[in-house]
Each structure stands twice: as C-alpha cells, then as structure tokens.
C-alpha cells in the first residue's frame, strides 16, 4: 500500500519524449523516417507504386504468421513451431496437388482443407504438450518445430518442389484489386477477425487475463488451460493459412520457406507490443510489420544487387533499437525521480 499513495494521483510533468509519443508511436515515426530518407535517396524507385505494391504483397505471409505468433503471445505462451508449420503447409499443398510426381493429384480446394486439418492437428499436439504434459511453451514448441521440420524434409527429400496448381488458385494468389495485391486483403481480413476476438469478445479478455496473471485468472474462473490450448490451435491454423497464401502466391517450396519467416513475424509482434496500448495487439503488430518492411525495401534499393544480407541485419537492429526506445519511458522515469527538486 505504502508505495502508491503519493506517486499515483500526481500527474507527472510530461517529458518531451512523452509528449511526442516516441515510445508508444515509435514504429510510426520510424516508418515516416524511412519514407522520407529513402524517398529522397531513391525517389524514382522507392516512391513508385510498383515498389509499394511489392512491399504490401510480399509481406502478407509474414503478417499472417505474425498473427499466429500474436494470439498465444497474448496469453503469455510462445509458439515457435509456426515457422515449421508454415513450411509443412506449403509442402503439403505442393505435394497433394502435384500432378506429375505423386499420385494424389487432389483438387486444390480439397488439398487446402486437408492442409489446414493437418496444421490444426499440430496445434492440438502442441497444446497437449504444454497444457497436459506441463512443458514450458517455449521449449515445447521449439522442440515440436524441429520434429515438424524433420517430417517436412522427409516428404520433400530436401528438394525444391514446384506446385502445379490450377489457374483459379494462382489468381487467388496473384490477382490485384484496385491496384492492390489481393493477398493483402486476406491479411486485412485475418487481422480484423483476430482484433475483434481479442478486443471485443469475452474470449479475448480471458486470453489477456491468462497472459497477465495465470493463477489469478484461473482463480477468477477463467479456464486458463483451455485458453492456452485454444490459442496454440489457432496459431497453428493461422500458420497453415500463411502457407496456403504463400503457395498461391509463389507456388514453390524450398526448405527455407517457413523458418525464414519466423523471425520477421516475431519481430513485428514484439515491436508491436511496445506500441499503442503497450501490450501485444493487432494494430501495433501491423504497423511494426510494415514499418520494417518499407525500411528493408528502401535499404535493398540503396544497396543494390548483393542485398541478401540486408534483411536479417535490418530486422534485428531495428527490433532492438525500437524496443529500447519504448523502454526509455522507464529510464526517463527513474532519471526524473533523481533530479526532481521542487
């Protein structure tokens, strides 16, 4: 009790940092800075519609994968298997609908349903390991991810697989409406659904409560086990969706497909969690995702042909800088306490 009585009701003097919202809106500022810097540097390429479209479309699978990471993360549960689940999804799609190499040759719709069932079942398994076997989610999903990768390698013989899909399916992935890649709308729809569930339904409240204080939530009647399990199923399902969208858009499987998307997805969620409300949330995740994406695109244009290293360097460095900006709030508070002389 004794710590709160003076500090709370007082409205602290707002520092410059605070007033500008550098902490809660750092991603937006960063995004703006990238647009200005790269816009001045490479005006004809960076500021063109083509590159904007490219960035919007290229990051859809990453975005859906970020949503997959976000849902259990709100319940303070990690799902690190989503990268592997995504590659499972892609390889299953290619494998089931491939006319030449194997005998399945399923219609693409059926293949997609089977793929989603497979991915959802993986979520059931990871939920079982976390909830029933009581393995820490970080370890459980890290381990499960490796097992899934092994299965994927076995199916694919560690080779590149080209999916032979119907024209309709390729349109599903490559069309444009109003000049915007159609896949972007899929991301938007998925984002709106997750946002609605998290912010505007009791289930969302329960998920955040589970993430905030699992024991208190359980004692208040929240079925916390069900929340953790359910969120892991949702994340595997979403990772499956990310894989299907990738198949439709790119139509090609390589061993790096899933895992390479894991870090950017996680980075967007972590960075996004420091934005707006200061907790994991959909809008923050999307803002962070595209701030990073436009930054990378700009840097790639500047560096030119050998820009293969730009991606990880940029993702890693910006994540650290941006999140540390957000925690400046805490540092500023401490500093103020020391200096305060009234």
């Amino acid at each position: 009790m004794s710590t709160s009585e003076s500090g709370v009701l007082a409205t602290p003097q707002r520092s410059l940092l605070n007033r500008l919202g550098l902490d809660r809106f750092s991603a937006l500022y960063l995004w703006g800075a990238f647009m200005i810097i790269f816009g001045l540097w490479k005006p004809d390429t960076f500021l063109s519609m083509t590159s904007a479209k490219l960035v919007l479309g290229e990051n859809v699978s990453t975005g859906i994968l970020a949503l997959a990471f976000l849902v259990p993360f709100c319940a303070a549960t990690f799902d690190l298997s989503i990268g592997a689940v995504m590659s499972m999804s892609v390889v299953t799609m290619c494998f089931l609908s491939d006319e030449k190499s194997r005998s399945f040759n399923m219609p693409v719709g059926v293949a997609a349903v089977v793929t989603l069932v497979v991915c959802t079942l993986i979520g059931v398994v990871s939920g079982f390991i976390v909830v029933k076997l009581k393995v820490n989610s970080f370890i459980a999903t890290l381990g499960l991810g490796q097992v899934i990768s092994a299965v994927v390698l076995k199916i694919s013989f560690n080779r590149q697989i080209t999916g032979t899909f119907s024209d309709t399916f390729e349109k599903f992935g490559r069309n444009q409406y109003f000049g915007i890649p159609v896949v972007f709308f899929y991301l938007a729809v998925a984002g709106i659904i997750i946002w609605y569930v998290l912010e505007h339904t009791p289930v969302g409240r329960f998920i955040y409560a589970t993430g905030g204080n699992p024991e208190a939530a359980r004692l208040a009647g929240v079925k916390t086990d069900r929340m953790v399990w359910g969120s892991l199923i949702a994340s595997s399902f979403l990772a499956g969706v990310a894989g299907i969208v990738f198949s439709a858009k790119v139509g090609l499987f390589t061993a790096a497909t899933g895992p390479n998307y894991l870090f950017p997805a996680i980075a967007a969620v972590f960075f996004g969690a420091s934005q707006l409300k200061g907790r994991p949330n959909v809008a923050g995740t999307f803002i962070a995702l595209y701030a990073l994406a436009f930054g990378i695109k700009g840097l790639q244009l500047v560096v030119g042909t050998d820009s293969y290293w730009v991606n990880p360097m940029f993702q890693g460095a910006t994540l650290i800088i941006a999140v540390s900006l957000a925690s400046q709030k805490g540092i500023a508070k401490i500093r103020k306490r020391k200096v305060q002389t009234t």
Partner: protein
Amino acid sequence: MAKILHIWSLSKSFPGQVALQDATFDVEEGEVHALVGQNGSGKSTLIKVLAGFHQPDPGHNVTMRDEVFNIGDAAAAHRAGIRFVHQDLGLVEAVSAVENLALGFGYRTGFGRRINWKKETLKTKQALLDLGFDIDVRVPVAALGGAARTGVAIARALQESEQNISILVLDEPTASLPGADVDRLFNAIRRLKARGIAIIFVSHHLEEVFEIADRVTVLRDAKVVATVEARELDMSSLIELIVGRKVTAATVNRSIDQSLEPRLRVTDLWGLGMNDVSLEVRPGEVLGVAGLTGSGRDTLIPMLSGAMERLGDVSIDGATIRAGKPSAAIAAGLAFVPADRLRNGIISMMSVRSNTTIANVARNKTGLRLNHKKERAETQDWISQLSVVTTSSEAPISTLSGGNQQKVMMARSFRLDPKVLLLDEPTQGVDIGAKEEIHAFVDAAAATGSAVLIASTDSAELARLCDRVIVMHRGQIVDTIVRGGGAMAQTIDKVLLAGSSLASN
C-alpha cells in the same frame, strides 16, 4: 530523553496534490515511535522524504542532533545513521542470510580474493543473535520464518558502523507476519531499543502500537494530527484520531433461520494440513475461521474454492462441486476473495474494469460482442458503491492502493450474487476506514441470504462479523465460539493461545 531528530513544518506537494503539509515530528533517543494513519494520510510520504526518495518543498527546518540536517538527501540520511527496512524487505530469497548481509556490505576476502566464509558466517550469526534470533544462517532465506527474515533485513540494515546508527525505520514490518512471529520481532525491537537505537514503526495493526510503542504520531489528510504518549491513549481514542470521527463498531443483528437447510455443507474434508473437517453454513450466516498459520485456517478456503486439491465432499444447496476447479465452483454459485491479493487476486496489467468483471464477462455481452459501454457503466457503479479511489474505471489496477485493490476484489465477488461467499483475510494490509466499508459489505451479503465464510488472523474482525467462529488446530476444529457469550475476540484469542501451548507441549 534527548531528542535526536527534529522536523518543523515539512511539506511535500506533487502536481495537483499536497501529500504532506506542515508536518512537525521528532524522535527521541531509544524510543519506539509509531507512525499511524490511513492510506494516503502522508505517512509514507514522510518516510520517503526522510529516506531521500522524495525531495521536500522549501520552507522546512530540520535538525539532527542539533545540527542542520539536509532532509531529502539519501546520502545525508545514511551519514546521519538513519536506516530503513521496507515492507518487502528486499532480501535475495534464494541465498543464505550470510550472503544477504554480504551483498549489502561486500565480502571480506582472504588470500587470492577468496571469500572468508567462516568469518562471514560467524559475523552474521552474531548479528542475528544480538537481535534474539538463533537461526541457521547458512540456509536460503526463503526457508526462514517471517520474523527471522525481517531479522535478517534488520541485521543487514544495521551492519557496518554500528555505533553510528541512531534511527531505524521499520515500514509495516508485521504486515505479513503471523502472531507468534510478531512477538519474536517485537523482542528484536526491544533489544535494539536497549542499545539506544530509536525505532520509527509504521503499522496498520493498532493493537501492536499499544504493545510496542512509546509514542504515537497520527497523520490524517496530509497533516500531523497529534503526537501522544502511547500510554495516554486507548483504542477508541486512537481510532478517532486516525479517522477524524468516532467509529462506533456496528453491532450485528442477524437472525438466522435455523430451520433452513445449510447453503454450504463440507463433509470429511482432507487435504494439505486438513484432517477430516466437516462444517455447515446456513443462508445469511457468517462463519469465522480462526487458527494459527498451518492450523488449517490458511488452507480451508483455498481448498473449498478449488485453488488447492482436496478430498471430501463440498456442496452448495445440496449440489456437490468438483474439487480443484475454480471455474466449476464459481458456476455453482461460489465466490471468493483470495488471501494473497498480488499473487492470486489482481491481474496487475489490466484495468479496474477488466479486473472487476473478469469472473463473469459474458454479462455485458450484446450478441457476440462485448459491450464496453455497458461494462464501463457497471464498473462505475461498483466504484461508487464501494467508494473505490481511482482516477477512472480504465486506470490500471496497479495504480490503486492496497485497500482500494481489495475493494475491487470484493466487487468482483459481490457482482456474482454468490450463494456462498468465501473471504480469506479480507482486510489484510487495508486501512481502518476501508476495513469498515468492507465489513459493511459482508453484512450486506449475509443480509441477502449468502452463506459467508471468513478466515482471518484478526480476532477483532471475526468478533465484529461472525455469528459463529470455529478455531482450528492441526487441521481440525478444536472449538466453536458462538456470538452472545460476550467478549468474543478475547475468547478467540484465549482458545488460540491454548491451542498453541498444546502444540508446544
């Protein structure tokens, strides 16, 4: 006795709020000086200014041993020999007392920077013996009892330049201690006093003030109301000073229809520290549970609510409820307030609103959608009913004081209209004003026909609220005290003491 610290007209204001106004306060050599007041009365601010955590407003005049003292400067306070032990003690739980002391002062090293463990251990052992604690200083602090842990924290605060220590500030040292541990701590305080060290003692437990304090300073609404010799006060005059009006203990006048079937029926309950307990509570009845820590008093409510595993039958209105599932218990009409508010009660990152409604979010649903507006209105209603002090229903619950957090916990339970209400230490760490309000709400819950069960270490509280009190010892009910026999609190205390002397024989 010689005055060592003298404070005149000390004020501290924060933007929009005066936390301490024109306080005058002094400390004599070797006295125990109690500092009491409700939450927000300014006593924490006074302590924090003294510690140099806050800087005071200009215009004050402070002397320490007749020299001008630069209050608000942590280093000056340290030089002047003022030491602080805060409520959370600040110990590293996983390591031993020896290491905890060394962490504060640095290890004495021998050849090759080798830590001289033998010397360290002896030194720590002696420091604790001086305080009256004969404990194993090599086990992790977490394994020690509450009083011994406080002892370690005091020893750490006092080490180095012992002669120089003049004032030790203990901020709510007894807040989480069971009765027997309080006595051990008081024993330590008396030893310090004998060494000429003045103690500033902050506590919500007024009976402790009478037991240990020489003088009492009362704060109210940011002002010092009075500094009085403890022996010139009695309980009711002290309470009047603290709250600023006469508090007449509400007399409970409940009539329980004995012909009604019990609402809550517990049959053959077994579990951790629980040996075959059966009990019944009728609608409108308030049953108290007294007992020392470990007697079963502390595990009864967790077992009934589903927080802890149990064997045996628990039923509400004849319907058995599943063990180990709080959600099932709540669905069956049970609501409860856990004892450890921070760990098991509040969800600190969430708002007052979310914390209030979490046990039944669906009530404010329109279709599939959560109706935020309706939920806000409902929370606002609870805030005004329980007079919760908060900036709004959207404020994070972590910004509220302990008493107000506890009121939110109450609201969370009351809004379920429970058939059975279980309260575990409902007023622990809550100031006397909020305590009265919480008690009034317990009365109201009983009046609407809830069966209420309260476990508490505060005998006066049980006497105030309960129609019957069961006393537990070694997992069994050893006595039942019924209202009407006069002096209920004293009877409870007597039985508790008898129980503990049985244990030691």
